[in-house]
C-alpha cells in the first residue's frame, strides 16, 4: 500500500520536475527572446493623461476681433501667432512683395530705427517674426510674461508703423537677392522649380515665395507700403494667443496690437489653377548631380472635404509613416535603394495636392521609380488592410499629445484651427475624426486618388547615364 502513494508520489514528483523544467525553459526563453510591449504598457506606472486643451473664443472689446485663446501657465511665457489670410505670394503683383514686406517689418518702427528695434528684442528676449507663404502672410510674437507690455508695443509699431529706412531696404534687398542665389545652388530647390512649372504652368502658384530676381531688384518702398495698406487689415486677420495670460489680458493684447489696423484691405481674386494631372514622367537632365532627385504629384482634397481623413490615412500608410510606410518598406528597408521616400498632403488653399519624393543614385533610378509606381498602383487597386488601418489609427491617436510641446506651437495650432475652419472643439474631437474612418472609405478614396492615370513624376539628374 505504501508503494502506490510513494510510487505515485514519486511519479508525481517526476512530473513536477518536468513541469518546472519546462516552465523554467519557457521563462528563460521568454526573458531572452520575447518582448511583450502590451504587458509593459499595461503594467506601466505612468498612465494615459489627456492634455487639458481648453480653447476658448475671445473677443477683443474695442476692435471686435475674435481670436482663440488657451491658458497654459507652466512657464511664464506668452505667445501670439497671427495670419493675414489670402495675402501670400500668389497674389504678389511684383514677385516677392509679401516676403520682402515680411523681412522689412523687423527693420524698425517710426519710433525706433532698425538697430534700436533689434536691440530691444535681444535685450528683453522678445521674438517677433513675420513670414509669407504662397497663400498667407503670417507673424508671431513670443515673450516672457514680464516683458509683455514692451513686446506688445513693439509688435504694434512693427505692424502699424513700420520704418522702411532706405538703407535697411537696400540691405534687405541684397540679402533676398543672395538668398535667391543660394537657392539656385540647391538641387532640391531646382527640382521644386521644375515641379512648380510643370504643375502650375503660368499660374502664380508656380512662383517662388522669395520672388524673382528682376522683380526683387525693381522693388520700391512704395510697393511694400501699398502691399501693407491692402493686406495687413482686420478683415482677414486670424489670431491665436497661448501661454501665461488671462482671458482679459489676451483680449486687451489683441486690441493693443491690432486695433489701429485698417478695417478692410483689397481683395484680389485668384482662380484655382487648372492642373493637368494626366500621368507622365518629366525628366530634367543634369549630368553633374550625384543622385537623381524625383518628385511626385497627384490630386488631393481640401481640408474640410469629407474624404480628408480617409485620404490622410491612405497617405500615411503609403508614404507618411516614415520607415514603416509601404514605399519605404519596399524601396528602402527591403532593397536599400534610397535613404528615404515619402508622400504628404500639400494644403495650398486653391490646389490641394498629394506630393512626394525620393532620391537615389542613377544606376538605381529605374528600379526605384518602378517600385514607387508599383506600390502606387497596388494602393489604388487593393487599398489597405484592416491591420494597416488599425496601425495608422494607433499612431495618429497615440502621438496626438506630442504636438503640445511648446507654447509657440500652441499659438500656431490656434490660428490654423480658425484659418482652416476646424471649429473650437477640434482638439477634443480630432481623435474621434480619426477613429471614425472606415476601411471601406479609405479604400474607396485610395482607388480615386492613388490612380496610375493621375501620377506625375518629375526627375532631375543624370538620367541618361542610367539608360546607356
Amino acid at each position, binding site marked *: 500500500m505504501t508503494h502506490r502513494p510513494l510510487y505515485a508520489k514519486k511519479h508525481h514528483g517526476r512530473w513536477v520536475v518536468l513541469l518546472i523544467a519546462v516552465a523554467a525553459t519557457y521563462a528563460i526563453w521568454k526573458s*531572452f*527572446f520575447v*518582448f511583450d*510591449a502590451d504587458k*509593459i*504598457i499595461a*503594467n*506601466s*506606472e*505612468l498612465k*494615459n*493623461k489627456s492634455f487639458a486643451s481648453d480653447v476658448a473664443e475671445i473677443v477683443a472689446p474695442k476692435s471686435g476681433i475674435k481670436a482663440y485663446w488657451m491658458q*497654459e501657465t*507652466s*512657464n*511664464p*511665457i506668452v505667445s501670439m501667432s497671427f495670419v493675414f489670410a489670402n495675402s501670400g505670394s500668389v497674389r504678389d503683383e511684383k514677385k516677392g512683395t509679401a516676403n520682402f514686406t515680411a523681412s522689412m517689418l523687423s527693420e524698425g518702427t517710426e519710433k525706433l530705427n532698425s538697430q534700436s528695434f*533689434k*536691440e530691444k528684442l535681444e*535685450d528683453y*528676449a522678445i521674438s517677433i517674426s513675420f513670414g509669407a507663404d504662397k497663400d498667407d502672410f503670417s507673424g508671431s510674437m513670443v515673450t*516672457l510674461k514680464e516683458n509683455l507690455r514692451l513686446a506688445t508695443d513693439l509688435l504694434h509699431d512693427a505692424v502699424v508703423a513700420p520704418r522702411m529706412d532706405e538703407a535697411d531696404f537696400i*540691405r534687405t534687398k541684397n540679402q533676398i*537677392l*543672395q538668398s535667391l*542665389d*543660394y537657392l*539656385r*545652388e*540647391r*538641387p*532640391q530647390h531646382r527640382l521644386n522649380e521644375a515641379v512648380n512649372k510643370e504643375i502650375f504652368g503660368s499660374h502664380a502658384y508656380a512662383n517662388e515665395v522669395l520672388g524673382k530676381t528682376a522683380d526683387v531688384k525693381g522693388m520700391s518702398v512704395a510697393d511694400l507700403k501699398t502691399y501693407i495698406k491692402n493686406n495687413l487689415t482686420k478683415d482677414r486677420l486670424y489670431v491665436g494667443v497661448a501661454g501665461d495670460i488671462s482671458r482679459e489680458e489676451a483680449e486687451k493684447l489683441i486690441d493693443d496690437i491690432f486695433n489701429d489696423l485698417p478695417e478692410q484691405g483689397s481683395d484680389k481674386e485668384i482662380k484655382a489653377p487648372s492642373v493637368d494631372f494626366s500621368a507622365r514622367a518629366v525628366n530634367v537632365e543634369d549630368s*553633374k548631380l*550625384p*543622385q537623381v*532627385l524625383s518628385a511626385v504629384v497627384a490630386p488631393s482634397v481640401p481640408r474640410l472635404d469629407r474624404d480628408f481623413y480617409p485620404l490622410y490615412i491612405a497617405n500615411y500608410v503609403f508614404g507618411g509613416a*516614415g*520607415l*514603416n510606410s509601404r514605399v519605404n*518598406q519596399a524601396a528602402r528597408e*527591403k*532593397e*536599400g535603394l534610397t*535613404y528615404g521616400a*515619402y508622400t504628404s498632403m500639400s494644403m495650398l488653399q486653391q490646389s490641394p495636392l498629394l506630393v512626394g519624393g525620393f*532620391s*537615389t*543614385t542613377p544606376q*538605381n533610378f529605374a528600379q526605384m521609380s518602378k517600385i514607387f509606381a508599383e506600390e502606387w498602383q497596388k494602393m489604388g487597386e487593393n487599398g489597405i488592410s484592416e491591420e494597416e488601418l488599425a*496601425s495608422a489609427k*494607433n499612431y*495618429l491617436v*497615440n*502621438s*496626438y*499629445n*506630442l504636438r*503640445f*510641446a*511648446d507654447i509657440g506651437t500652441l499659438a500656431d495650432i490656434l490660428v490654423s484651427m480658425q484659418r482652416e475652419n476646424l471649429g473650437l472643439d477640434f482638439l477634443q474631437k480630432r481623435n474621434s475624426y480619426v477613429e471614425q474612418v472606415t476601411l471601406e472609405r479609405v479604400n474607396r478614396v485610395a482607388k480615386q486618388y492613388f490612380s496610375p492615370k493621375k501620377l506625375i513624376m518629375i526627375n532631375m539628374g543624370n538620367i541618361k547615364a542610367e539608360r546607356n
Partner: protein
Amino acid sequence: MKKLRFSVLFAVLMLIALPVRAELFGLKGYVLENGMRVVVVPNHKAPIAKHMVWYKVGAADEKLGKGGSAHLLEHLMFRGTRKVRGQSFNRILEENGADSNAFTAQDVTAYHEFVDISRLELVMALEADRMRNLSIDDESFETERKIVYQERKQVVENNPLYKFNEELQRLFWQNHPYSRPITGSENEILSLTDKDVKDIYRHYYAPNNAVLVIAGDIEPETAFRLAEKYYGDIKPAKVPENRLKFDTEVKTKTTLRMKLPNIELPRLVKKYHVPGYAEAKGGIYAYMVLSKYLGEGEVSKLYVDLVVNRKMATGVSTDYNFTAPSGGSFSISAIPAKGVSVDEMTAALDDSVKQAMSELNDRTLQKYKKQMLSGLVYAKDNPNEAAQIVGMLATAGMRDDEIENYADNIEKVTVADVKKAYMQMLQSTQTEAVVEPEGAKK
C-alpha cells in the same frame, strides 16, 4: 523630407544662442550602480516625454579606414535584437505613436523617442534591450550599408559645397580623427564589414558609457526608479581609453582656396583651435561671451559693422564649439556682398574683429551678457530641445550643477577674460578658407 531619420550631421546647439535664471533647467541627476548617468528635466505642461540615450562614441572613435562604421551601427540598431526581431522595433514604436530617430556625430551617437507619457516605460524597455541584445544578420547588414551609402549621396554630396566643407575639416583637424567625415568616404562605406560595427557595439555600447536623458511629465524620483528597473541590470563594460587630443604644441596657419562648380555665392570661413570644455572647464564662458559679442545675431559687433554700416558682407556669424572632447573650435563665417572680393572681405573682417576688440569695455560687455541671460526660461519650455541641450552638455562631461549654473558663469566673465581668450585664439593653430564659384574673377 520631414520624417526622414538618421540625420548624420546635427547642428551644434549653442547654449549661447538661448535666451537663465539661477537654474537653467531645474534638472536632477542620478548615477546607476552600473555607471549609467541619468539626467531628468521635469516639464509638466503636457503628458509627454523625450527619452534619449547618448553613447559617448562617434565617428572619431573609428579605426583608420573604417569611416562610417559608427554611423552604420546607428542604422543597424533599428534592425532587430534577439527579443525584438527584424522590423518590430519600428512597428512597436509606430503602434504606440512614438516619434523616434537617432544621430551620429564625431563624439556621440544618440537614440531618441518622443512619446506620450504612458509609453515612456515601453521605450525604456526597448532602448535597454538594444543596449545589450543587438543582432545583426547578413541581409540587413548589406541593405543598411546600401542605405547609408545613399544617405551620404543625398545629405552630403548633393550639397554643392560638400567638397569645401570636407576639405576644410581635413585641413583644420590635420591628422586628428575629426578631420574625417562622419559618414565615411564612399569607398570606406562600401568596404565596411559587420565585424567593424560589432566592434564598436561591443566596446562602447555599455551603461557606463551612456547618458540617459528624460525630459517631460515625470518626477525625477520616478524616472530614477524606472531607470534602475530597465537599465539597472545591464553589466558595465571596459570602455577603450579616451582617444588622443588634438596636438596644439606646434602652431600652424593654413589657407584653403577652392573654386567649385554649381555654387553661386563665395564664402569665407576662419577657424581657430581654442580650448573646449575638456581642456578649459570654466574657461569656456569667456569664449561664449566672445562669440555672442562678435557675431551672434543682428546686433553683434561684426554684423553691425560689416553688414549694416560698411556693407561689405550680407551675412557674418560666429560659432564656438566647446563640447568636442578632443578640442574646441571657434569659427567666423562671412558671405561677401556683391562686388566685394574675397580678399577685400578677409581684410575687412580682420580689421572689424580688431576694432570690435579695441572697443570692448565693461558697459558693452554687460549689455551682451544681459542678452545672453534674458530669456533662458525658453530653453526648458520644449522637452525636445531641453533634452537635446542637456544630453550634449552631459556627454561633453559637464556636471549637473555646471549645466544649471550657466547664468552665474556667464555673469562672472570679465573684459579681461574675453580679451585673454581672444589673444589665445589669435595665437592658435588656424585655417582661413575661401570658396568661390568656378569662373569667378579674382
